[in-house]
């Protein structure tokens, strides 16, 4: 009876209303609104922390509001110019016809993609772990080890053609990170040791190990600082443009790998096993899946993806290995995997968002004098809204979603 009622109900409503209702249930709407609200609150924060705004309030209330709005506007303008480009400059450069000016004008956009690339790899690493119910906090450490093994392959193998040297160096990075993921994976499977603790500890070992390598075996014999020798020309990832644009092949490799991870998770029997173990390990055991093997495999792949993030940076951007070359990509990746709902497609989109924010923030600080930390606050707002969807639902009066089939189950400290 109630079914019939429902049918009649939907008939009465016009298509637009149905669309709005469906859209209001979609997790994508929630994400977009969270980003929007984060930007709004961030702008408010810029306004209330700006001295000029208070001075303007002394003149008149209206003046204060105007100055506040202007401060927020100029922040986001600088962010836009820094991450995508200044439309004025772009038009000017095209009119001028000077190739280098044009490249310089478009550079912010391409540089943002360059920053997004390690985020994609690292985000995939965390997301894959989440899908299997594993909290891989060790992406940063795996990234360092992957960078070290990739650099070793890129320096010590000589005389190879690029078509062979590049893949070998990338694979070396995958293996290095994968090994670093294997250890906590094995410890979890064999002894029940919780991966959160062990991956954090493995991070410290990785940081100190890469320091040791850079003062010892990997140190550039011709230099005095703890930096490796430059990698062989043949191991470098192809760059598509002349300087200053640094966009390299790594970005497209990242997109390809994201697609491969998608296929692995959702189109293969391996992925079915990984997801089942993640969603309900007891049912997985009942169904005859090997939980130990799956846990280890997942940590190896996750670590390997993190290793690719490191390899990508040294082969594509830096062309050598230095201390502290990663500015926390592995930790940001945890947040962006959550933002992307642990789906490869979502990870790519949120990695690009993070890349644009990060690159834009640097430019924003240089040109508008806005502290770079405002971006960290902005990201925090967005993530808080993602983590607490009830706030967004209440503010924008969205409907409760039906049970979310894509929801990723994470197990708590119990460890099973």
């Amino acid at each position, binding site marked *: 009876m109630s079914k019939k009622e429902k049918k009649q109900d939907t008939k009465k409503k016009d298509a637009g209303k149905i669309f709005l209702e469906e859209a209001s249930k979609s997790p994508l709407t929630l994400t977009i609104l969270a980003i929007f609200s984060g930007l709004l609150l961030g702008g408010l924060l810029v306004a209330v922390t700006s001295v000029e705004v208070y001075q303007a309030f002394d003149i008149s209330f209206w003046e204060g509001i105007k100055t506040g709005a202007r401060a927020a506007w100029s922040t986001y303008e600088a962010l836009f110019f820094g991450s995508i480009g200044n439309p004025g400059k772009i038009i000017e450069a095209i009119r001028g016809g000077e190739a280098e000016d044009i490249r310089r004008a478009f550079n912010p956009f391409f540089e943002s993609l360059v920053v997004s690339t390690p985020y994609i790899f690292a985000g995939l690493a965390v997301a894959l772990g989440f899908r299997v119910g594993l909290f891989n906090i060790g992406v940063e450490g795996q990234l360092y080890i992957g960078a070290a093994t990739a650099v070793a392959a890129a320096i010590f193998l000589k005389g190879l053609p690029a078509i062979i040297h590049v893949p070998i160096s990338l694979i070396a990075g995958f293996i290095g990170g994968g090994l670093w993921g294997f250890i906590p994976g094995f410890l979890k499977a064999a002894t029940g040791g919780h991966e959160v603790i062990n991956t954090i500890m493995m991070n410290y070992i990785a940081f100190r190990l890469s320091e040791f390598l850079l003062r010892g075996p990997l140190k550039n014999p011709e230099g005095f600082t703890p930096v490796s020798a430059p990698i062989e020309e043949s191991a470098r990832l192809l760059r598509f443009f002349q300087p200053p644009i640094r966009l390299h092949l790594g970005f497209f490799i990242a997109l390809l790998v994201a697609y491969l991870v998608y296929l692995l998770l959702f189109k293969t029997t391996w992925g079915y096993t990984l997801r089942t173990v993640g969603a309900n390990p007891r049912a997985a055991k009942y169904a*005859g899946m090997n939980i130990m093997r799956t846990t280890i495999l997942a940590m190896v792949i996750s670590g390997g993806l993190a290793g690719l993030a490191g390899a990508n940076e040294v082969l594509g951007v830096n062309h050598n290995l230095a201390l502290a070359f990663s500015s926390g990509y592995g930790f940001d990746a945890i947040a962006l995997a959550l933002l992307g709902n642990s789906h490869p497609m979502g990870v790519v989109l949120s990695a690009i968002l993070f890349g644009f924010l990060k690159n834009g923030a640097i430019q924003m600080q240089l040109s508008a004098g806005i502290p770079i930390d405002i971006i960290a606050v902005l990201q925090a707002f967005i993530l808080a809204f993602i983590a607490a969807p009830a706030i967004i639902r209440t503010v924008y009066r969205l409907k409760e979603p039906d049970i979310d089939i894509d929801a990723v189950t994470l197990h708590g400290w119990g460890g099973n």
Partner: protein
Amino acid sequence: MKPILELKGITKRFPGVLANDNINLTLNKGEIHALLGENGAGKSTLMNILYGLYDPDEGEIFVNEEKINVSSPRDAIARGIGMVHQHFMLVPVFTVTENVMLGDETTHLGGFLDRKSPAARIREISDEYSLEVDPDSYVRDLPVGVQQRVEIIKLLYREADILILDEPTAVLTPQEVDELFTIMRSLVNSGKSIIFITHKLREVLTFADRITVIRGGKVVGTTTPKEADQNQLASMMVGRDVDLALNKKTANIKEKVLEVQDLVVLNDLNQVAVNEVSFNVHSGEILGVAGVQGNGQTELVKAITGLSHPVEGKIDLLGQNIDRSTPRAITELGSAHIPEDRQQDGLVLTATIADNLVLNTYYLDPFAKGVVIQEDQIRDNAENIIKNFDVRTPSAMIPVGSLSGGNQQKVIVGREFSRSIKFLVAAQPTRGLDVGSIEYIHNRLLEKRDDGCAILLVSTELDEIMELSDRIAVMFDGKIIAVVDAEGATKEQIGLLMAGVAEA
């Protein structure tokens, strides 16, 4: 007799559902009134309204012919209405006294807890109704049956006159059920009145004074145990004729399928849970394992299905030794398993029905070609099983967790029965299900048996064991203390064996 409680025209709507539709109910002083209905019929909604957890959209509540307004459990308690929930609301690390006084603490010297006078009061209550509860013991150390009595004491301590018991027997052993009903009788004899919610017919007929049946949010009728019988009540609950007597053919027993010899299995705490057990199951028969929960049945099933490995003894399935085999290897031999805990072990609740229907065959042709999942085949398979096994769902692509318990169990039964199987372990296959689903699953089990499948049925419901089994093995304290032919066995005989009192 004067009604102590009257509900008039109670209506409650949830989005898309009419949970209670103009319900009238009267409770007389000193009676046990059973509220009978299938899962989702609206019993719990009605009681939650009475207890102040929901506001009714329409209707009035009268206590002692005085109209009252309950907007919170606190109001309900003030009016002498108390409720024992199906899942107990106790703090395990607190003592009985601390649990009982929680929310209503007596203090002295302006803030120090006084445990002595509440403990004395609890002892009084316990003696008055012979509840045998020690106020100083910790709740975590008490068996479930005693925990339930602590919940009842909580109500009596607050001087409730109307007690609501929500599915009180669901968690109890048969002995504990008998004890509970003795207690209920002594409560009503001293002037209390009880509403008890259930979907078990036998209990209602044995213990209730009056019975009200609810279906689809409406009262179908009120009757007494004298006027009604099981079939009649079942039909009222389900809304169609139900034949509770199963159509069981004579067993056509053939070759030995499962052979268990001197099996010893440890539990999670490394204690001996199954102690030197030997038995056989043959093609075409159902061997029922009867026993009170926790006498080693769970561990026995785990060993037979490969979820754990025995420390001694051997298990042969279809002539192959499976002591050390993995669950997958055992499944591939032609064995199926309906697990005891369907939500924890049998299903991935967040995954779709279609995915759940290939949980143990997803890697085989036709569901996978190499490592590539064949989504169309998985969907077709799901649509077939949904049709053949009467799973009520709008689509195969929704999470299995959104189905009712009965339909979840049909998903498992459908999955296990749609493979060609020679051996089946069914552990508590109808626990918590409604009459319609129980009838359905029982008939399917018998069909499988007549097809020549060997079935090991483990159940704590003695009625279920008696009705379905060809032979009955009784487990007590880790041992099988007797195997008897179902024909000629009496409930009393099996009951005594289950309690470990008699030898076969």
